[in-house]
């Protein structure tokens, strides 16, 4: 087990170096002359994070934007990469799939999450029921891919099925189906995996929001003769609107960036690729960093409206405070 020792040493050295840097910053801030103390503090506390974010996110984002207008050799090629994206059938399929993902995943995950949160509200064993649906959040996309292969597994007709759904299909007298191979519906079967992961997240947030709706309001509606559906529709939903928006946008962003599910389950073959996966394939496998960058830029443009919206909500909240 000597390899563990080497890794352990590297970790200790890294942590010690980090502690030394932080210690130095604290020392400098403490020793600064009184007149400049506030300025030195701000710089000292903010600089490490600011530098890392500028180098790790802002600079690469700008760099990628430029790269999107170059060819495989790094020569400027105008908008060729974008023309490629919007004309090649494979690239178009990628864009189409991304749109399907970002429409279906947030709606389904939020829908299931909301329904489940309402169903288990005040039910016996609420805590356990919550944990079961929330659990997929803790599982990596790669692990989820392997888990779902067991569900979607396919064997030829006449052979004992090892996948749950195909076993049920055969038992019901249907033919087994190649869930991950048959386009276009295979995209739906990948989407189900993402919904499985995200529903727990939606459920936890919405469940907390539902509990925040004043009991008196629900009670008043009930006494006015509203049936459970009307209570839900007219009292609960308006009461949790803010949480619904947050859940929808958060899941939409996560979905736009989804990469691992497609990568591990189909590697983007059989017409299932999405922008995030295609970007990786083009930039790191096909030797076309320009195309990859162009796809990343499109991804950013898709996310941008959501950023602007969230930033505005955030600013409003800060003004209220």
């Amino acid at each position, binding site marked *: 087990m000597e390899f563990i020792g080497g*890794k352990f040493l*590297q970790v200790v050295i*890294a*942590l010690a170096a*980090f502690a030394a840097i932080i210690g130095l910053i604290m020392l400098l801030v*403490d020793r600064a002359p009184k007149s400049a*103390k506030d300025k030195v*503090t701000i710089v000292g*506390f*903010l600089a490490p*994070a600011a530098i*890392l*974010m500028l*180098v*790790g996110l*802002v600079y*690469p984002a700008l*760099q*990628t934007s430029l*790269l999107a207008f170059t060819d495989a050799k790094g020569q400027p090629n105008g908008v060729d990469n974008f023309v490629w994206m919007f004309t090649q059938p494979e690239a178009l399929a990628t864009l189409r799939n991304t749109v399907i993902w970002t429409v279906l995943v947030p709606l389904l995950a939020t829908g299931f999450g909301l329904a*489940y949160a309402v*169903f288990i509200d*005040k*039910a016996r064993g609420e805590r356990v*029921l*919550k944990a079961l*649906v*929330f*659990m997929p*959040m*803790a*599982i*990596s996309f790669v*692990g989820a891919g*392997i888990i*779902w292969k067991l569900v979607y597994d396919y064997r030829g007709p006449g052979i004992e099925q*090892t996948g*749950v759904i195909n*076993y049920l299909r055969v038992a019901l007298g249907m033919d087994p189906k190649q869930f991950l191979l048959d386009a276009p519906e295979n995209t739906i079967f990948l989407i189900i995996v993402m919904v499985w992961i995200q529903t727990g997240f939606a459920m*936890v947030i919405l*469940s*907390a929001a539902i*509990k925040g709706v004043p009991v008196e309001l629900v009670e008043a509606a009930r006494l006015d003769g509203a049936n459970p559906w009307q209570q839900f529709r007219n009292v609960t939903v308006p009461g949790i*609107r803010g*949480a619904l928006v*947050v859940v929808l946008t958060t899941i939409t962003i996560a979905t*736009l960036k989804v990469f*691992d599910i497609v990568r*591990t389950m189909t590697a983007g073959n059989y017409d299932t690729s999405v922008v*995030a996966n295609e970007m*990786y394939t083009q930039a*790191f496998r096909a030797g076309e960093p320009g195309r990859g960058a162009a*796809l990343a830029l499109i*991804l*950013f443009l898709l*996310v941008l409206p959501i950023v602007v919206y969230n*930033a505005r909500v955030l600013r409003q*909240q*800060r003004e*209220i405070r």
Partner: protein
Amino acid sequence: MTVMPAPDEAANASSTKTRGGLPPNGSPEDSEPIMRRVKSKLTSRWATAAAVIIATVWTIPTFGLLVSSFRPAAKQVGPRSDGWWNFFGDWQFTFKNYVDVTAAAGSQSANLSQYFANSIAIVIPVTVFVLVLASMAAYIFAWGNFKGREAAFIFVFALQIIPLQMALIPLLTLFTQVLQIPPGSYAQLWIAHTMFGLPLGIFLLHNFISEIPGEVIEAAKVDGAGHTTIFWRIILPLSVPALASLAIFQFLWVWNDLLVALVFSGGTADVAPITQRLAEISGTRGARDYLNPAAAFVSIIVPLAVFFGLQRYFVRGLLSGGLKG
């Protein structure tokens, strides 16, 4: 800002009012028409049934993986194989898959214990780095006094949403060609993960730190405490709940990552995390497919343990952070 109540607190608050679906104390339950009472009982029964069905459907895939991982190779692949549910009729149980995937025996073996150690060696420093740097920045954004503070904070918030895909190519070039960080060391992964974790970390911690009462900080200042003392002696101890939830968050996120690992690890057994190895062995279909469930379970056991052990803090972190209604 309205903070959503943590679910357990809210559950306590509401369950005292309406336990077991009974109307609140004093309401004239007996005078209520019997029909309506029966109907509402039935609706809640249907709702519970629906909830149990959803919970079952959601749990079966993971349960199937767990069962599969204990089944002998011949039952999982090849002519004698069948579905994992046959395990219950045909009780054949083995630990051999787990021994096989974790043993370090040549380049052909899954060698998971080595990758497992890599994951731990990647996750721990990143979590520490992000916690310390993000709390320092969050403190300044919450209590520092400088021009453009609001705008800078909104900018950091927006950074959360830059797709990592956009950052990868330039960052890889920067690391290997400009900064000369050797590929195949942990350093690239540590730095990259820290960079990507900071915006969310600052955002989550800021929300918590800014709600610390100003009087506490003023009192310390009157006593002559400087910023460093206030930060280490007051802010950090008071922020333990938020720090705990961010730590879990960051831990799960880095442990489960594949994309950053694929780009920065170089893919060697010295550095690559367990997710990357898992993707490799599950990507090559073949006679060793029977190892996949055991391998997957080895990789998800730590996050599951963290999740079930620290679920409360994790959920609280989700709720006190960027997710306000």
